[in-house]
């Protein structure tokens, strides 16, 4: 396979509702930003592009079948090849990887990946219902289908197995909202305390409103190119492109029905041994994996992406992570799946300084004083919890923030430098669909590598 580069990205303003634009025009907002950042006009870039991939999650929210081709048409990319990608919450992550495939395989030299979601077209309760239709409509949905409820059941089991606490979860909310305070793209920019998170209205015990991401309207675009494609762009613009190399791609899956997750052996990451999961701490002396407290798909995606990128010690070798924090609890579970800490230690990791940005004060004494603060910042952008979660755009939004981190252009795009991870050379992005059914992990690296 050939090397693939992300050369630029764009994000529309994410908001609870964007009635000012149709989904096509929202896509153009993100797409044209990415192209202008390359120093090109849309028309000129479209001459160079070989096709595209468009992603959105829900035909219910769009109330429009074939919305993918309508976006492609509006962007001016017809009659070139294209297709729509869908995979629940991981839709955007899958879209990025599909564009990667088009280039890695030699089929295309330049391929934009564009995703969107317009969730404001129904009220929140109907939106919850639409999302819950991404659970088995024979056996899950009719019992009381509600995604926050599903994730709450998972974390209750995590609490039972490992002693994880609601206060540890609240640390994730404080971190991500505070990071977003420095990110004008984010929908919710708030300075919070653990107490405020816990005292927010209860949604699905123990998750409060501040443990859960919100629905959004928005779009995001990532431009991918081969070595040859980069040269074409540079020739057309007369400017040098700051390339970000995609060095690892991983994807995993699991059963839709959460009740159908068996307990099996742990697939080990390169930094783990089978012996790590033997002992009194684990059920019957051995970790029963994944059950419902962990995401088998997340582990599988991480194992694959790390192997491809040559990562053997994720916490030490990844400079930052943008991961799918639809719930504070799932961020904690994902720390473990991605090997940033061992299974069972996600709660402690969340309340340590390690996933926080080193230069921001969070008002959490144990975190702010931790000499290991900033070991591997997780969701420096604010993540889904604070940026918003317009599903089909979310995984691409993560790619754009990661690209800007690695290009060291956070100040340029956000007009604020605070969340720039210093010396960021390698980042991981993680996109996750309904209760862990599809998960993607992609590794991005700055020019020159680590």
């Amino acid at each position: 396979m050939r090397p693939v580069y992300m050369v630029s990205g764009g994000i529309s303003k994410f908001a609870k509702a964007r009635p000012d634009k149709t989904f096509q025009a929202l896509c153009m907002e993100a797409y044209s930003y990415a192209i202008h950042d390359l120093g090109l006009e849309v028309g000129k870039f479209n001459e160079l592009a070989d096709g595209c991939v468009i992603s959105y999650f829900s035909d219910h929210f769009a109330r429009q079948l074939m919305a993918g081709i309508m976006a492609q048409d509006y962007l001016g990319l017809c009659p070139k090849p294209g297709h729509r990608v869908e995979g629940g919450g991981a839709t955007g992550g899958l879209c990025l990887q599909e564009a990667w495939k088009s280039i890695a395989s030699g089929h295309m030299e330049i391929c934009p990946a564009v995703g969107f979601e317009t969730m404001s077209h129904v009220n929140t309760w109907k939106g919850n219902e639409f999302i819950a239709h991404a659970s088995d409509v024979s056996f899950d949905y009719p019992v009381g289908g509600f995604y926050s409820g599903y994730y709450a059941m998972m974390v209750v089991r995590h609490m039972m197995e490992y002693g994880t606490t609601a206060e540890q979860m609240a640390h994730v909310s404080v971190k991500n909202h505070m990071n977003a305070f420095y990110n004008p793209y984010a929908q919710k920019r708030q300075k919070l305390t653990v107490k405020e998170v816990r005292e927010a209205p209860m949604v699905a015990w123990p998750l409060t409103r501040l443990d859960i991401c919100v629905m959004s309207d928005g779009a995001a675009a990532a431009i991918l190119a081969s070595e040859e494609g980069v040269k074409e762009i540079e020739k057309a613009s007369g400017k040098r492109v700051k390339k970000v190399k995609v060095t690892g791609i991983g994807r995993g899956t699991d059963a839709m029905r959460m009740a159908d997750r068996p307990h099996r052996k742990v697939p080990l990451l390169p930094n783990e041994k089978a012996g790590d999961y033997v002992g009194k701490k684990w059920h019957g002396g051995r970790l029963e994996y994944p059950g419902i407290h962990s995401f088998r798909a997340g582990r599988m995606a991480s194992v694959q992406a790390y192997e491809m990128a040559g990562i053997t010690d994720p916490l030490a070798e990844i400079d930052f992570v943008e991961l799918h924090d639809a719930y504070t609890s799932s961020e904690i579970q994902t720390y473990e799946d991605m090997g940033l800490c061992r299974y069972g230690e996600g709660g402690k990791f969340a309340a340590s300084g390690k996933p926080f940005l080193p230069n921001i004060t969070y008002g959490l004494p144990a975190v702010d004083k931790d000499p290991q603060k900033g070991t591997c910042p997780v969701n420096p952008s604010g993540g889904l919890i604070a940026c918003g979660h317009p599903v089909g755009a979310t995984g691409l939004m993560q790619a754009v923030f990661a690209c800007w981190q690695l290009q060291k252009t956070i100040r340029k795009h956000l007009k604020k430098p605070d969340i720039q991870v210093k010396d960021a050379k390698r980042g991981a992005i993680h996109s996750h669909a309904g209760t862990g059914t599809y998960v993607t992990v992609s590794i991005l690296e700055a020019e020159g590598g680590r």
Partner: protein
Amino acid sequence: MADKKGIPMRLPETETATEVYSLPFPELPKDLGALKGMKPIVVKQPYHIDYIHSYGQDSPWIAGLSNGTILGSRCKRCRNTYPQPRGHCMDCGDETEWVVLPNKAKVHTFTVCHFGSQEFLPECPFVLCLIEFKGCETLLLSRLMGVDPLKPSLKWVGMEVEAKFRRLSKTKPTDVYFVPVGS
């Protein structure tokens, strides 16, 4: 929205509106440029569907509930038993056979839903749970009754529960639900 004394401060917001037969519009052609600043027109588009849904090969499981029986799917080769029915085994792909599961089980995990999908809002707060049956490989999503949803406790995990069946079947998985043993 009420103030501290409980006196309503706002009229309620509803999704109904007056029908509109004409909209303001600038004078043409001189004010064409002003159209770019126009606020969006937002309208209501109702959408209703009745699906003809079949439970297919899983139908006996639903019929079991309306007759006071929880069925499971069992793979002879792997000895896996699944309380949520599967026509074929997740490990070997063999066709499964029906077995009768016990009416007593344990709570594997739970949550209390204070909000939810539109369809279930009138039932909030309600308790969702995953039930574990002895000897089963996987779990069953169900409702837990007979506990106070306003006093959730991790102690509910592991609690012994027994199945109750709706007398009037709704041909839905909620034809069975669980209560603490002896309640």
